[in-house]
């Protein structure tokens, strides 16, 4: 106890002085965005492309446009290894950086998101958990500081079910079919279960939930059960090594791969490549297109990679999760841009960016301006709806790349939104929040 005081004192002197000194010469025309990344550890294969997409888009904005409306973006990466305690450390370290503090924080882990939700409102930093995190927080009336647009796990699950139904030939055709949900045995993996259970009741399909414990290298028993059930469809909410093993097991067990759909964290190149040819036909949900056939990618090559400022390997541009990071960065930037329409073209605080996010309206036209027409779907966020209830695409692995094999599939909003509102009350109350009146916000 005694030495610790000494040690921490000495370390404090060494460390606090460091970051402080580094932060001092920041220019006033800059905004700071903390990046919680995981480029190492068991989840690095997913973390690396996301982080690269993020960084590349910001670099592009700075290089091509000189920032957002003349305000340069700065950022600092902090390695979390997908661990909550490191996430907290990173957040605390970075939340006050830059002349106006952190503009928006992307936790990139459901666990870390849960830690940051209570803190963000106190620190006045919006939490942007794009397509993950606490689904209940999509109800902006209870969670003003948390955003999950363009879509959520629950919406995704409903959209995937809708897709299966479409493939079977209509919404009523799922009745009597057997669907298996293989999920990572964690709150993240279990997110889709209630929605699926509700839908199973409503649509009459037979749902089996099979949990796979972290990390999921050995799934023999799970796939034995799959083989016994012999389902019509498999939906998977996997993560990390579990995905690769599952895809491989499915292939080797001779399951119809095109009836195996992963959620958007189970459908990256890294999940299918180790399975080799066996993965051909495997499908995945997404809310943006894969590949590099968009103007924004051309710009990325031109302004970023050709200048040698790329965050990663050029070949990896366009991977599913790379594009995920790109979309995430783009949405963040657009939210900032939106906020500038109200607060002026200057560095903004987190509180101001929050307004921008809540009033984000990404139209088809704006998407075209951004060079991402067809890459993602238009989004409108409101005070009540922090999700935007975005539609979902299904992509399929052809052995070399992902291709989109569906139209935009709308989630079942009637089912999902009601569940979200119920959950929001529950989660909001837990944190001692009160519901705000959106009518008064305008």
């Amino acid at each position, binding site marked *: 106890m005694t030495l610790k005081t000494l040690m921490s004192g000495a370390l404090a002197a060494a460390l606090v002085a460091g970051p402080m000194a580094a932060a001092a010469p920041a220019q006033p025309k800059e905004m700071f965005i903390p990046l919680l990344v995981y480029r190492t*550890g068991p989840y690095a294969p997913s973390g690396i492309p996301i982080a690269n997409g993020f960084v590349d888009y910001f670099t592009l904005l700075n290089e091509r446009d000189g920032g957002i409306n003349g305000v340069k973006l700065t950022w600092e990466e902090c390695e979390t290894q997908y661990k909550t305690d490191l996430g907290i450390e990173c957040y605390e370290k970075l939340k006050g950086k830059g002349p106006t503090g952190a503009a928006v924080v992307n936790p990139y882990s459901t666990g870390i998101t849960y830690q940051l939700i209570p803190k963000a409102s106190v620190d006045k930093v919006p939490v942007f958990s794009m397509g993950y995190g606490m689904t209940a927080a999509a109800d902006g009336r209870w969670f003003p500081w948390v955003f999950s647009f363009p879509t959520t796990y629950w919406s995704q699950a409903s959209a995937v079910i809708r897709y299966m139904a479409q493939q079977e030939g209509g919404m009523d055709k799922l009745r009597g079919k057997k669907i298996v949900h293989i999920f990572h045995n964690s709150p993240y993996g279990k997110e889709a279960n209630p929605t699926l259970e509700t839908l199973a009741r409503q649509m009459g399909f037979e749902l089996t939930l*099979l949990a796979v414990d972290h990390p999921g290298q050995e799934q023999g028993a799970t796939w034995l059960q799959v083989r*016994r059930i012999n389902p019509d469809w498999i939906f998977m909410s996997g993560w990390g090594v579990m995905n690769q093993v599952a895809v491989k097991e499915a292939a*080797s067990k001779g399951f119809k791969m095109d009836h195996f759909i992963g959620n958007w964290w189970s459908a990256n190149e890294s999940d299918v490549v*180790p399975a*080799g040819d066996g993965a051909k036909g495997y499908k995945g949900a997404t809310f943006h297109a894969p590949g590099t056939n968009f103007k924004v990618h051309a710009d990325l090559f031109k302004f970023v990679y050709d200048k040698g400022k790329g965050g990663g390997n050029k070949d990896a541009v366009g991977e599913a999760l790379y594009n995920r990071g790109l979309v995430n960065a783009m949405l963040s930037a657009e939210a900032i841009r939106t906020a500038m329409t109200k607060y002026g073209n200057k560095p903004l605080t987190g509180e101001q960016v929050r307004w921008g996010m809540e009033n984000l309206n990404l139209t088809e036209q704006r998407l075209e301006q951004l060079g991402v027409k067809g890459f993602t779907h238009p989004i409108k966020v409101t005070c009540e709806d922090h999700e935007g209830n975005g539609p979902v695409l299904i992509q399929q692995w052809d052995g070399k790349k992902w291709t989109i094999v569906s139209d935009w599939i709308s989630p079942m909003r009637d089912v999902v939104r009601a569940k979200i509102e119920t959950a929001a009350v529950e989660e909001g109350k837990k944190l001692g929040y009160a519901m705000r009146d959106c009518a008064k916000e305008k």
Partner: protein
Amino acid sequence: MTELLYGIAVAPFKDMAGSPAFFAEVLIGGVFAGLMYSLVALGFVLIFKASGVFNFAQGAMVLFAALTLVGLIERGVPVALALVLTTAVMVALAWVIERVVLRPLVNQEHIILFMATIGLTFFLEGFGEMVWGANVKKLDIGIPDRSFIVAGIQINQLELSAAVTSAVLVAVLAVFFQRTRIGRALRAVADDHEAALSIGIPLKTIWMIVWSVAGIVAIVAGIMWGAKSGVQFSLSLIALKSLPVLILGGFTSVPGAIVGGLIIGVGEKMGEVYWGPLVGGAIENWFAYVLALAFLLFRPQGLFGEKIIERV
């Protein structure tokens, strides 16, 4: 209550009898999975036997071996040459470990050496990732990965080859231990360090050899597991899966590692498939440990472990 009892004591067996082909498949799946565990456990046993070190870094060594192999192949080295080079790397690693870690810590308590191997784990994980990158890599050295069906039982080629490899490896190790001079020396060391020294066996050399052999076992385990899941950081975590195998088989027994693996593999598959649904599944992880624990209560030194004799 009766329902629960029925669920535990009757239904699963009815189930098994009802679908014997599937039951056989479960059994075979368990055997294959068990042998995969044994592959990792073997590395532990070798080292524990000769040096009394509970080598937590075995998982990291598997990762490191697989990363090295894949990394070399990715850089265009032919598979055979890559295998040779990887073996050389693992032997070099064994040499370094003996020099830098084991020798300064000789005669320390077990837990200290255990802790040192944890430090080694950190080091190898960081080093492996730094050199070869954190991305998942596909390991393809030509092992087929398709299933075929024999008498209604689906068998996976990869698992079959893993099983065969495990069996071959065990046979080779058994011969190595029984028939070669070094093998006999190893057994002498395992029995009594000082006795071994007194008959002129250099302990340091023995340790180096053992760690090298463990490194080679790690390559094999790395190939098998890497073929299954791709080569990536998570390989390091399979060490945990092999722990129940170890306790069951005993830390010092090579056959124990195999038999333990089979029991755990079959046990956990049966548990998960037939009893798992009762409690909602995903019981594989703890079930293996509880199974091992139950065994231990009757044989505290493991199935094949040497009886601990305490002199008063």
